[in-house]
């Protein structure tokens, strides 16, 4: 599958709650960040967990979020960041 995003692109994590083996943490769903890097393409864990092939492989990104955007009342440097690996089909 083709990578739709490049480093520096603004993205938002989909705010949905499907059942299954999901590698997108709850706390980051619905939040906006910036692509830090493309990590490559990997088998889709949601499919692999069901004993299926995991194909097509999904591009995996590291997405950078500002802590103060993620946590209300975050205490610390305003530049503190949180970087999370997120598969392309979770980004919009």
């Amino acid at each position: 599958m083709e990578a739709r995003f490049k480093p520096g692109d603004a993205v938002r994590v989909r705010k949905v709650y499907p059942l299954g083996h999901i590698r997108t943490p709850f706390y980051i769903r619905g939040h906006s960040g910036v692509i830090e890097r493309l990590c490559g393409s990997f088998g889709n864990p949601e499919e692999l967990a069901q004993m299926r092939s995991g194909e097509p492989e999904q591009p995996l990104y590291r997405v950078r979020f500002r802590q103060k955007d993620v946590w209300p009342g975050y205490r610390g440097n305003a530049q503190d960041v949180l970087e999370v690996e997120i598969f392309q089909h979770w980004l919009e």
Partner: protein
Amino acid sequence: MKDSGNYQPYSYFQLMEVSLRELLVEKGIVTEAQVAAAVEDIRNITPERGARVVAKAWVDEGFKTRLLQDGTSACEELGLDIPALKLVVVENAPAVHNMIVCTLCSCYPRMLLGMPPEWYKSRNYRSRAVREPRAVLAEFGLHLSEKTRIRVHDSTADMRYLVLPMRPAGAEGWSEGRLAAIVTRDCMIGVAVPKLI
């Protein structure tokens, strides 16, 4: 002799492990010896491997550049094989501190650090490291200035992370071996920084 050991019945997961292992052996898929050897292999990996990588990066600028670009292939140069997963090395700087967590489970660079410590797998560390990293670091005895920016890395998928700490002042001219000795497991997870011994 009286045995006063405190025996508990197997937990659900222990029972599942034993049942699965016995079945695999019974069906001739693996042998007991292979299981024992695999467990030994895992136990033989210690944080000294990661420390070797860090010390090499401190003394060899070219290696450091390659390590930060592609951790997996740089480790292969040292004969350290990192199968299937990709290693991302993140570098500390005077104004930037990196810290690793896996909020979903316990993803950890086992090929370089061995088995993760119990606290790394605890709900306490996993939930708080992303939300209040400064408070968590303070509990480890690491008090960062407000001016230091913290980058927390949540290993949620196929990457594994290693922190490249800063070489402490006063360790100039040290050999790689001597440098490696001050790089602890916690320094490479990012909950400590190297200190002179």
